[in-house]
């Protein structure tokens, strides 16, 4: 575990400046087997300390991989010097940031390092299961991975925190060929918050997932191509979560609003059907911990939920301290950094569309000709609200019933147009948390939602 020695440096912070001092350790573990062959067996451990100092509205930042008394003094001096140099050069003097509440969050759990052998053993056991049960496949890959982030933070506004966030996952990829020799593949991830040894003490759930991946793959060997054009679709909870994150979430990050995102002029306007409510949860949702809870951010702000859309009305943005000052809002605790050497940026935490009242079977029954889109492997969005997601699993809907599986495709739309077409929202929701969001730095995020029925553009032939 990281030492808390940086907490004693609060007394030495420079006057007339806002200072954050952070020590951090990132640990990653990875093992992967391709068709039974071990192709990756690696781990990394990166520890360091960083300081960020704000003077006159500009920031200086410095970081080093050493975590000693001397190195803490060095990064503080360098960050002060960098801030002073930039302040002298630009002279924009925006004044001090409004203060935030003092507080303290002590370490609530430890994150012990898990032996590499456990990752390899889990992969081997699961691979043997795939060999026994999955006939007719052309390739199989299993990946076991984890990342744990530990931070100790002290700020000049008086917040102290010691936090650990572990997460771990198993991925199963299976490939087969269609009758004409075209390769098709399906993958799924399992896991979430917690260390690998605890999340995968039993592989029963992983074996069930393997069965499901195999079943989807076999259906996909008979897949049809989607027809390009505007379609009525049902998005699964995973895709609804991607929609919440990519299509809406990024446009309401306050730094992107300042950068001209489409959401800027739409505050308090109708941007979606009144069936749509969307929140970026900090640490608790529906009375349960979120997939990746954030209790305090890297600016020393206690994290709170950011209500983004309420019954179709755009209600707010996600803020750091600087953007909150600009918009006259309260910071939401959304400023996060990935490595010790990264500065905090406005990032989503656990972004979700809230469940509605409809049943999935009624939603399917309501569609004469459309698609049920189940899984995704990536997504991107734009300042304009235009988004796209890669779709890796889905089914036709014909006359109110599920039909043949679909080949991979892409869907796209303009968020605040497409959300107005939502006319059914299911009463069950699903969370995922295995990916990274990319915005200068990678960042683990949770995303989720219920099934959502809407109209959007589908790629294809």
């Amino acid at each position, binding site marked *: 575990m990281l030492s808390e020695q940086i907490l004693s440096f609060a007394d030495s912070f420079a006057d007339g400046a806002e200072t954050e001092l952070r020590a951090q350790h990132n640990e990653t573990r990875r093992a992967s087997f391709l068709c039974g062959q071990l192709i990756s067996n690696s781990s*990394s451990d990166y520890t360091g300390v960083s300081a960020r100092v704000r003077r006159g509205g500009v920031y200086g930042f410095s970081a080093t991989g050493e975590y000693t008394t001397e190195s803490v003094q060095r990064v503080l001096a360098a960050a002060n010097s960098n801030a002073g140099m930039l302040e002298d050069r630009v002279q924009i003097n925006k004044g001090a940031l409004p203060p935030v509440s003092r507080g303290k969050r002590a370490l609530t759990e430890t994150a012990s390092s898990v032996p590499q052998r456990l990752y390899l053993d889990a992969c081997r056991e699961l691979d043997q299961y795939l060999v026994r049960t999955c006939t007719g496949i052309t390739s199989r890959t299993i990946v076991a991975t984890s990342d744990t982030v530990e931070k100790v933070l002290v700020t000049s506004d008086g917040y102290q925190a010691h936090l650990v966030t572990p997460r771990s996952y198993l991925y199963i990829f299976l490939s087969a060929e269609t009758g004409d020799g075209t390769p098709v593949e399906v993958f799924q991830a399992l896991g979430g918050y917690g260390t690998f040894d605890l999340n995968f003490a039993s592989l029963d759930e992983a074996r069930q997932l393997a069965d499901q991946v195999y079943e989807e793959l076999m259906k996909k060997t008979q897949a049809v*191509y989607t027809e*390009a054009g505007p379609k009525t679709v049902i998005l699964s909870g995973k895709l609804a979560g991607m929609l919440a994150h990519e299509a809406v979430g990024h446009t309401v990050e306050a730094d992107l609003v300042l950068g001209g995102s489409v959401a800027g002029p739409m505050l308090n306007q109708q941007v979606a059907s009144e069936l749509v409510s969307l929140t970026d949860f900090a640490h608790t949702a529906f009375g349960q911990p979120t997939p990746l809870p954030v209790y305090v951010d890297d600016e020393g702000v206690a994290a709170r939920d950011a209500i983004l859309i309420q019954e179709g009305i755009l209600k707010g943005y996600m803020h750091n301290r600087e953007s909150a000052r600009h918009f006259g809002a309260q910071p939401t605790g959304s400023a996060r950094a990935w490595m010790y050497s990264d500065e905090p940026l406005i990032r989503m935490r656990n972004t979700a569309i809230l469940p509605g009242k409809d049943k999935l079977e009624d939603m399917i029954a309501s569609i004469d000709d459309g698609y049920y889109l189940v899984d995704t492997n990536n997504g991107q969005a734009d300042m304009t609200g235009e988004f796209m997601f*890669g779709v890796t699993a889905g089914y036709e809907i014909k006359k109110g019933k599920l039909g043949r599986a679909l080949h991979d495709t892409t869907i796209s739309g303009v968020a605040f147009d497409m959300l107005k077409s939502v006319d059914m929202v299911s009463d069950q929701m699903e969370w995922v948390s295995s990916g990274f969001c990319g915005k200068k730095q990678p960042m683990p995020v949770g995303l989720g939602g219920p099934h959502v029925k809407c109209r959007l*553009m589908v790629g294809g032939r």
Partner: protein
Amino acid sequence: METLVQKAGIGLETLKEGGAQQAVCSASREVEREINVAFGEFSLYRTLFKDSVGFMAIRDQKRGVLSQNKVSPEDIREGALRCLEAADAADADDAWQLAPPLPGQLFEDGPLVCDEEKLFDRCQELLDQIKADYPLILIEEMYVSHTMRESAVLYSTGSSFQSRRGAYSVSLMFSAQEGDKTSSFFGSDVTFTSLDLPLIRLGSIEADLAMVSRQIHTSPTEGKFTGTLLFTPGCLGSILYACLSTFASDSVILDGTSLWRDKLGQAVADPGFTFALAPLHPDVIAGERYTAEGYLSEDFNLIEDGVLKHFRISDYTARKTGLDRAPNSDSWSFIVKPGDQPLDKLIQGIERGVLVGRFSGGNPGTNGEFSGVAKNAFLIEKGQIKEALSETMINGNLADLLVNIRGISSEVVKDGSSVLPWMAFDGAIISGS
């Protein structure tokens, strides 16, 4: 304080003493200075001092890999022991091998010292030029940096490589705005070695600013048609990267799912297409000089005159499959041989299609099928660039694209990591609302 060679030596000796028959230890130090601009104004200046040590051990044909940034002698020894533990947990596989021994090599290039004052001046100059010449452009983010990286890599075979390499880079993220209307965002990135030129003249920065300035007011594509895709050099890079991953990379060759798995020596593209991976090319900054296994990197043609000459596979995959390893493992360094017609002639020959500045799409499956949104795009009709487009999807197959090349421009863009022309491909499905 130990030198990098001494640190790598401590790690290598510990691995060997621990029973590794083959081992590698690398030690590096990186100093980075980065100027950040947000919304057109300087916002942050940061200096980073990063050390790291990497270990690879093969004991009884079992391989482990570990990296860390604790670099005291005690921490290095501890890291080496943990790497050996990881190797013990692995499966024996005799395809993990190091390269035969080579004489020691020192690589030194680029600006090793940052000219901080001039770098700030060039940033200010760029912001001023954009404000004056491209008033609709809003710089959402800009990062301008200098990085100096020193490293030492020691192999149990006796090979050793040392390097000291410096480079500048500029990365812009911007859009164009008029009232409440905004264009799609766009990114321009260039790596370079000299501050002699204004930054706006590097890579395609100026052309990108001009292009995005004309993309505020867009029209959606109506209906569906089969047409030509003309990719800008930056967009072409992402398409070629997808081709490499889908057809020529380790995983798809190792498991045999690549559509090109039996195509070595055969035509996979138009005869006018030659595609090299060339980290030693004079226009590639800080390209790879040696591989992880200890081979010296060499340039090679992946596709030459349309014929598949190599896969981009590691020494491990080569041993597993009986194929030749790729002569380098650089992740970029793309060089496409330019064509013989200027860009305007290429456009004049297109009856109906789309000029695509950025492709936003799902990762193509192993069957090569792709679909996604044409971003920062213009309609092309009867040989002329028409209005900017929105809500336009493009669909096709990567393998088919390379066969259906309509033309390659004689002009190229050099961004420090690639040298790429504009390329036009026929037979794509283009659809809108």
